[in-house]
């Protein structure tokens, strides 16, 4: 019996050696041949009955030893084959990871609307409401209520598109100021974006463009507040280092009126091509709301003061993104549009 056990051991060893290059199924079959219910090692256990009683303990030990040894052999080989199989699979399934991905591309906002959104985000947090007034406007809101009398040069036919004697295409978002102030009493903080129209067309002018109007009316509003708000705006829209400069100007609906320049974001104020060597870029018009405008809206100018500012969004987009011709913005070439992933 002992010999028989040794032979089994040798057979298993040889069998395993052979099956090492084979499959896990072959290994399983081999395992069953010895360790299955009817396998040879199982047969040994059953054969114990025929072993003389005094030899049984020793024989029993031998049988369990060979069983344990065989199980270990099979387990190890199983692990080995599993590993080999996995390696083979990995190899066969290898892909070129540099091949292109499939993904859903996302579209873009128009650059002018990106600027609009950024400005709104900047002012929204400061408590500004967003108001969009009508584009086809009455003369009163676009001009008269804004203290632009009938003979003012800005009213000339060559600047403004008229529909009838009374109706026109608004030439400025300032018309929204009046509509807001007629319906709402201070405190007022609004931002009014929208399309405006002027009869003008070249590299820096478009017959339709966008403006953003800002208006604050409350008690004790000063020119310093205007400067503070615009400083914050400049820092957020351009760079933290951007400064503003006020200089005197004239608009019929503000007094005092100022032109606001930003230190050039490109050269930091040293002077470059973009700022034409001055270090400053003209960006918007502003001022303290004219008393007459407040009166026209039924707001007591002795109780309240306010400031207003207005800027061209195309101009800001052009400055910010380095676009040199306004006409690009209205061609809507998809190659340009796709560049503005914000």
């Amino acid at each position, binding site marked *: 019996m002992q010999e028989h056990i040794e032979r089994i051991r040798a057979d298993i060893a040889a069998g395993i050696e052979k099956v090492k290059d084979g499959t896990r199924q072959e290994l399983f079959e081999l395992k069953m041949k010895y360790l299955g219910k009817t396998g040879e090692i199982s047969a040994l256990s059953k054969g114990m009955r025929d072993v003389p009683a005094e030899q049984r303990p020793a024989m029993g030990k031998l049988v369990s030893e060979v069983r344990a040894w065989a199980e270990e052999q099979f387990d190890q080989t199983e692990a080995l084959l599993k590993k080999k199989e996995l390696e083979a699979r990995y190899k066969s399934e290898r892909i070129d990871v540099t091949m292109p991905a499939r993904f859903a591309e996302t579209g873009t906002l128009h650059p002018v609307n990106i600027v609009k959104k950024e400005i*709104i985000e900047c002012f929204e947090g400061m408590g500004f409401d967003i108001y969009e007034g009508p584009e086809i406007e009455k003369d009163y809101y676009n001009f008269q209520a804004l203290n632009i009398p009938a003979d003012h040069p800005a009213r000339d036919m060559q600047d403004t598109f*008229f529909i009838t004697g*009374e109706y026109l295409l608004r030439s400025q978002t300032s018309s929204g100021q009046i509509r807001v102030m007629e319906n709402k009493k201070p405190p007022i903080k609004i931002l009014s974006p929208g399309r405006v129209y002027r009869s003008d067309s070249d590299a820096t002018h478009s*017959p339709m463009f966008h403006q953003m109007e800002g208006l604050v009316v409350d008690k004790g509003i000063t*020119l*310093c507040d205007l400067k503070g708000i615009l400083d914050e705006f400049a820092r957020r829209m351009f760079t933290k280092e951007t400064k503003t*400069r006020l200089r005197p100007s004239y608009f019929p609906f503000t007094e*005092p009126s100022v032109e606001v320049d930003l230190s050039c974001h490109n050269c930091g104020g040293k002077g470059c091509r973009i700022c034409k060597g001055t270090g400053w870029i003209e960006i918007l018009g502003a001022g303290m709301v004219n008393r007459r405008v407040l009166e026209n809206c039924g707001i007591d100018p002795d109780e309240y003061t306010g400031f207003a500012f207005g800027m061209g969004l195309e101009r800001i987009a052009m400055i910010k993104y380095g676009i040199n011709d306004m006409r690009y*913005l209205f061609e809507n*070439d998809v190659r340009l549009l796709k560049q503005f992933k914000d």
Partner: protein
Amino acid sequence: MKVPFSWLKDYVDIDITPEELQERLFSCGFEVEELKYVGEEIDRCVTGRITSLEKHPDADKLKICRLDCGEYGKDIQIVTGADNVFEGALVPVALDGSSLHGGVKIKKGKLRGVESCGMLCSGEELGINDDWYDGADVNGILILSEGTPVGTDMKKVVGLDDYIFDISVTANRPDCQSVYGIAREVAAVLKKPLKPVDLTYESSDFSTSGRVYVHVEAPDLCPRYIAHYVRGLKIEKSPLWLRRRLALSGLRAINNVVDITNFVLLELGQPMHAFDLSKVEKNEICVRRAKEGEKIVTLDEKEFELTANNLVICDGVKPVALAGVMGGLNSGIAETTAEVLFESAKFERANIRRTSRALGQKSDSSARFEKGVDAYTTGIAINRALNLIEALGCGQIACDRFDIEDKSVAPAVVKTKYSKINALLGIEVPKEEIKNILKRLNFNVSAKGDDITVTAPAYREDIEGYPDLAEEVIRMYGYDHIRGAFLPTAKVTGGGFTDAQRTEERVKRIARGQDYNEIITYSFISPKDYAQLRIGGEAERAIRIKNPIGEDMSIMRTTLAPSMLTTLVRNIRRGNPRARLFELANVYIAKQLPLAEMPEERKTLCFGVYGAGEDFFSAKGVFEAIASEFGIRFAYRAAEKPFLHPGKCAEVLLEGEKVGYLGELAPDIAEGLALEVNVYIGELDFAKLQGSLSSALRFKPLPAHPEAVRDLALVADEEVFCADIEKGISDACKYVTAVKLFDVYRSEQIGAGKKSMAFSVTFTPHENAFKPEDVDGYVKRILKSLGEKFGIALR
């Protein structure tokens, strides 16, 4: 507004450079658009005396001159072809390496073998005419008058050593549309005294009223009219100093009387006019509205037919001037004019503007009146003109005048407080500083404690209240004193988007998620754009612009489709292989035409698509993406649109209401545009949609029991719509929560005119879990219902 530096210096002791002055003007509100050195073209051109003159040995027409140019050379040899030179003449010498008018460079060279170290110059070569220097118009070398040392820079000799400030003056400051007006600002900003204009003159003992009767019948259009008689005139050339001033300002000298009126216009900003009194009939001047159909021929020989909207100056019979615009040919100054009536008037600016526009007739005068002339300056200008008459010694001045003023000029008085001015500025400008600034600007200030009473100078018709004073103070005190503050006194406000605005942003986000790029197109289009889409009738209900730039931008669009198509076509023609574009913009719907009330501006959403892989259903995707995001359900119905493929066009409905459409561009239109790719266009009436696009999020409990999914392959007639089958399935069983088509199949076996459609149907249990036989029962019920409604059978 062009202002010569030298002229400013007549009135202010300017001790800074022109560049520094430019900076100072900029800081107080006067942007110098261009600062130009008048003689910038001329370099190394000096006076020289011809010490000897001899014939060129090899050329009959050439002469060899030797010149004494002082420090530049005592004996310079120059060959010239001019024949007006002579020994001893003082002439302009362009030295070797010099430059002249028009960028001409002069170099040493040989002329017919004789060395010439420069060139003798004519007036033209220096860029000047007789107005700059007597004799400059002569055809030949400019012979200079005696008294200038040799070697003097020619620019100094002929008046080119000067600067011109081209200043942009804002519309509220017509008082600065003159040399003296700017001088007032310069004096204030430099804290220097302003020298007065010489307004003195000696009058003779004859009167204006004895010669002519002047009256104003339209005081509303002519608030002040001054007429002063001058006789014994000698019409001649003005003196050099006066002509040079005009030349510096870009005007040509005509004769002394005309030059004086132009000079006063430049210096004080008051347009003047002079009538030849011998041509004035019936010794009368009347300012009145023109009669309908009345005619006038202006100085430039153009004839105009007038209306009552035009103001005219008339004699006893006929118009002799178009007020404020131009004098009549019938009363102009001629060489023989011996007596004139000088006019200095304030005409109402709006009327001058309207007349000038309506007749298409402009002049320096009308341009100036349109900006606004103040009645105070009208008064001093006449005195200045008479002062110049006397200075030029060219006439005798009457002892009286007509000065017809509607109401006398009362300067604006502002009673306010220092603290109010500072409250608007937000800083503390010291009281003394405020007072001094206002005084420097010629305001009269009387103060008591915080209270001040400020009288504006008579020429400042723009001053109304304390904010105007605040502006005067801060532009002189310096805007750099303004320090940013953050609304310390204001109430806190919430701010932010309205729900409607938020929804817009959300819709745009969805579109972008579907790879759509936003476009912005003009709100106005051409009637032809409608015609191209075979919806020409739309143009009739569109709002028309009265004064469009052109026909192609003449009507306010009622649909975004034409602009979208134009944009897609542009992209296709530029070779861009694919595009998905959207625009969210207003369309403009008139309630009636012509417009009598505010039209409706309707937010509309437009989509446009082309390129490989795009078809009707990929274009439909963005509609479904929006529906899915907002939890609404669009229904689609086959429809027709004049510009879309009749077999590939759908109406979009929301709860039975039409909210949009989409489809493929009609093949014949595409062919007409030479498009080789299918184009899809759709629109959604965003305004109508908006009410249904709620942003309110609500949690729906998850199903307590598992759902069951069954696939059904159904054979239907070709005519049956997918949407109807989907609805049929849903309607037949209340547990159906989703129906999704996943395959369409046609074959001989199925039969001609039939199609097999495979749907995946989801059943969701309510309170109790499904038993296996339940779902089988539902399917049976569905099939029965479909069979009855559409003759559909299970495949």
